[in-house]
């Protein structure tokens, strides 16, 4: 029997993160997520294809502003995300445990995620220099090649990791000035939406990062076939899923990049490679003459 003198806690509603806002899924569907620890099950939003398409509209609208934002400022924003996450460290450690991770692993995950974000914040104003070139053409032209963002990246976070998998699905894209629609891991939907709150408080412009919770088996084909998505990042999908995605991605020559979950967690992931895999190289020519 409940004790009428105990305070009843306020349960959190976990929603989607689209265009800088936290809407419920337009479909009205939910998935019951049973906590590993005590507490009521959580009704997690089960995003639909329409939610994904709405998120793509938000992400596309944010591309021009975000790609015009200086590397210096994007670096500060990524640093801010790390800073905010550090401030909520204990909340995330606690939430990972409620999702079923043990205490030691949870702590390791959150610390690694923070360090990963810090690592990427430093790449925003460096990767361009490292992968650019002035090309010594034999004619009288000045010719240079620089990386530019691909545009809109759809990514599927690793299920094998809680927070580092999510960061690995988002940070390389936004470091390189892309915008992202990310499908959270089905086993870690709570931390994903709490991470959206961190993003929301970190001056990340609306639409730059969008996070959906839902079923991978349902949404994957839509991620792969959407004609306005420039690149698809996949973590720990099955061979069949990856093949199906590669076939669907051919319709608009979408770039398909696979993240090896063995490289997670931590900063052992090659940050430059991850950022560069979501960049196009642009070469510009101009005559040298009077």
């Amino acid at each position, binding site marked *: 029997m409940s004790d009428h003198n105990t305070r009843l806690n306020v349960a959190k509603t976990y929603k989607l993160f689209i265009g800088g806002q936290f809407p419920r899924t337009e479909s009205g569907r939910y998935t019951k997520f049973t906590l590993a620890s005590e507490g009521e099950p959580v009704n997690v939003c089960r995003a639909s294809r329409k939610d994904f398409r709405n998120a793509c509209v938000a992400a596309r609208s944010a591309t021009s502003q975000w790609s015009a934002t200086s590397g210096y400022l994007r670096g500060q924003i990524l640093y801010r995300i790390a800073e905010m996450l550090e401030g909520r460290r204990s909340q995330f450690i606690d939430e990972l445990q409620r999702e079923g991770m043990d205490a030691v692993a949870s702590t390791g995950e959150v610390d690694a995620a923070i360090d990963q974000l810090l690592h990427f914040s430093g790449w925003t104003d460096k990767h361009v220099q490292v992968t650019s070139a002035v090309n010594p053409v034999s004619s009288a032209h000045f010719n240079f090649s620089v990386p530019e963002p691909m545009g809109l990246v759809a990514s599927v976070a690793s299920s094998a990791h809680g927070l580092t998998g999510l960061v690995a699905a988002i940070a390389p894209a936004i470091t390189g000035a892309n915008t992202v629609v990310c499908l959270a891991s089905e086993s870690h939907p709570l931390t994903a939406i709490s991470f959206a709150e961190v993003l929301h408080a970190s001056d990340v412009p609306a639409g730059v990062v969008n996070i959906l919770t839902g079923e991978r088996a349902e949404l994957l084909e839509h991620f792969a076939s959407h004609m306005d998505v420039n690149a698809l990042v996949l973590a720990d999908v099955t061979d069949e899923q*990856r093949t199906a995605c590669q076939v669907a991605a*051919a319709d608009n*020559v979408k770039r398909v990049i696979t993240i090896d979950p063995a490289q997670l967690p931590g900063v052992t992931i090659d940050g430059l490679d991850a950022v560069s895999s979501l960049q*196009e190289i*642009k070469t510009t020519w101009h005559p040298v003459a009077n």
Partner: protein
Amino acid sequence: MTETSHLAFEGPWDYAPAPESTSHITLQSEYGLFIDGEFVPSASGQQFDSVNPATEDVLARVAKAGSEDVARAVAAARQAATQVWQPMAPAERGKYLFRLARALAERSREFAVIESMDGGKPIRESRDIDIPLASAHFFYHAGWADKLQYAWPGQRVAPLGVAAQIIPWNFPLLMLAWKIAPALAAGNTVVLKPAETTSLTALKFGQLCQDVGLPAGVVNIVTGDGATGAALADAKGIDKLAFTGSTGVGKSLIRSLAGRNIPYTLELGGKAANIVFDDAAIDQAVEGIVNGIFFNQGHVCCAGSRLLVNESIATPLLDKLKSRIETLVVGDPLDKNTDVGAINSKAQLARINDYLGIGREEGATMWQGGSEAPEKGYFCRPTLLTDVAQSSRVVQEEIFGPVLTVQTFRTFAEAQDKANNTPYGLSGGVWTDKGSRIFNMTRQLKAGVVWANTFNKFDPTSPFGGYKESGVGREGGLHGLRAYLKTATESDA
């Protein structure tokens, strides 16, 4: 002739014929497949004709490779990779590439003439651009062979193995060089399939490989049509696929590679905007527009096929452009006066004419200039389509011929939107005297190669490749090398 043809002097503007001699070239009547250092017939014994598109004469009979032949070529390439090419000291590999560069330069006249006979491009272009650039590609990449560790500091690099390469008919030998030179420099061996209509310079290149003593199996050439290309892409044992051609075929290749863990680079179609602002040096812009679309009969994936001109200068610019086009000589590819040669094949000419019909049905106004085309052979006069909409098929789709659509714009933003509003993103052009505007527009264009106050320039050191549906990866320069190497961070060792 129109009233605007200021350069078209009184009476016909005739040039005395100046044909390049074909006496110093050697062509066999038949060619086999080049596999494991030898020319061999195809297993099926099938052959096809290679036709001169300017005269419709058969130049040679060429073997048609089937999947059995492709498998033999891949096996030869594998053997050469593991037994010879990869164990060889990198500097020695480089020497073979230097030899190929030099041998091409020494025989450049022969290669240029055959290129023009087999493909229809003006001898002026094959002589001054295609062959010298092909040689330069080998020379540039030769020097990389023993310096790969400097390309990405901190990374260990290794070759991929056997590279399957499929190339188009618009720059036959140059595309061969773009593909083979970086692959060999990085320590890979290759199986290359030339386009069905332009096999001859590739087969001559096979003989060059024999002449310079390149180890057998390092370069293999399998000739044939799309079925041969599909057999090569599907072949077991390839470690990499490089393709240049249409976006449609590129997409089908991506699907055939799905699940096979084979890296690929694709150079696909384009529909480049050539943007002329009101402060541009107008005569230079006119030259750039002409070079952008009529170079190689417009059979150029990066051709500037959409002119976007500031409304305020549209009338004087178009007058000058038409006047300049009237001076273009359409005709015999082997004539040194020829500006616009033959359309590569009967099928391609039919395709271009289909698009001209579609354009007119969509309401476009068609204007054609230049000299009259010869009656025999496949020719198309330089064509302008005005009164087109952004949604017109002739504006959205790649025609791959000497056809320029003309649109106007009033503001920078309108030019930017129109330029980027196609599924393609290979190249673009910007003409303005204002430096800040150049940098603004070249940044805004979603395209892999942008020419400012110039157009259609190429160099072995300059990466080339597209955004969006124009392809994946880059070829040329430092960035192009990466497509033929595996890299790993040194700390992972």
